């Protein structure tokens, strides 16, 4: 269960963020998840809903997910193409000298937070 471990890492990172920003409680969390990041969204949300209740900082906070489509860049013809449909081989010129431009993201985009005012 890969997503379980990921949720634990998300919460750990959120605790770091809370400390740095004097956050008392987190109201919502928005993640950015790339199309080829290998995360199963349904499972991720299930794990989140389970774990958030065990952690005072994120208790009850909904998880929002923004999907990022995967795009690959070809260094031979310098064009972009959708990764999922064509993989590592450029559909324009057939070259395999390509790299993933975006779509591997798995980041915490933003949070809504209750901040201590006496800081």
């Amino acid at each position: 269960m890969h997503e379980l471990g990921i949720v634990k890492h998300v919460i750990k990172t959120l605790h770091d963020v809370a400390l740095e920003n004097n956050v008392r409680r987190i109201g919502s969390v928005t993640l950015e998840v790339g199309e080829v990041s290998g995360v199963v969204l349904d499972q991720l949300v299930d794990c989140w809903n389970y774990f958030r209740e065990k952690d005072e900082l994120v208790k009850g906070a909904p998880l929002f997910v923004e999907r990022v489509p995967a795009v690959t860049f070809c260094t031979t013809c310098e064009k972009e193409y959708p990764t999922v449909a064509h993989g590592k081989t450029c559909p324009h010129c057939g070259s395999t000298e390509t790299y993933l431009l975006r779509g591997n993201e798995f980041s915490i985009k933003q949070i809504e937070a209750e901040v201590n005012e006496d800081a």
Partner: protein
Amino acid sequence: MIKVIELKRTVTDSNDRDAERLRRELKDRGIFLLNLMSAPGSGKTTLLSRTITDLAGKARIGVMEADIASDVDALRINALGAESIQVHTDGMCHMDAGMTRSGLEGLGSDSEIVFLENIGNLICPAEFDTGAHRNVMILSLPEGDDKPLKYPLMFQKCDALIITKMDAASYFNFDLQAVKERVRALSNTIRIFPLSAKSGEGMAEWESWLLTEWENHKNA
């Protein structure tokens, strides 16, 4: 007061920082850490046993066995006189930098080269930095030559790929050339070592790479 905080921080951010810190500390302590990843049953412990025996007198090798449960692998390594420790991940599918750090605390200060035998799994261990100086993947011949197509990230993350159980080649339709081409398409820098820890074929090339990388690490 409620406010929106823009973060743009990767989920593994706190782990990445822990890993970078651990990597530096280990170098200062004179430890060269290799993260060994593979599917279950690929022959990791057999390969390590042979490597420990072959390099006796050249390097003191320690092993950290990460498993969900049991200590059978650690006992096999202990029987060779090498330092070994068993780490349990309590059901987690990979080792992260924090778990690696606490595991290493249980290992004495004798070892110069330490292998982390990661959980047998080709997906999550590739995504979490353990703080190791090199990443090595083992693919055993019976698993088939299509593994690079199914688990691309693992092959992109590794510095070396060891193909084990080559002595069984005549029993399987395993196309070594095809594997090499598929792996090359994913990484231009990865080194590939086909070998058999049972017959000893190919072991010298892998061991010589290991010793060279250890030297490079010490001088880096």
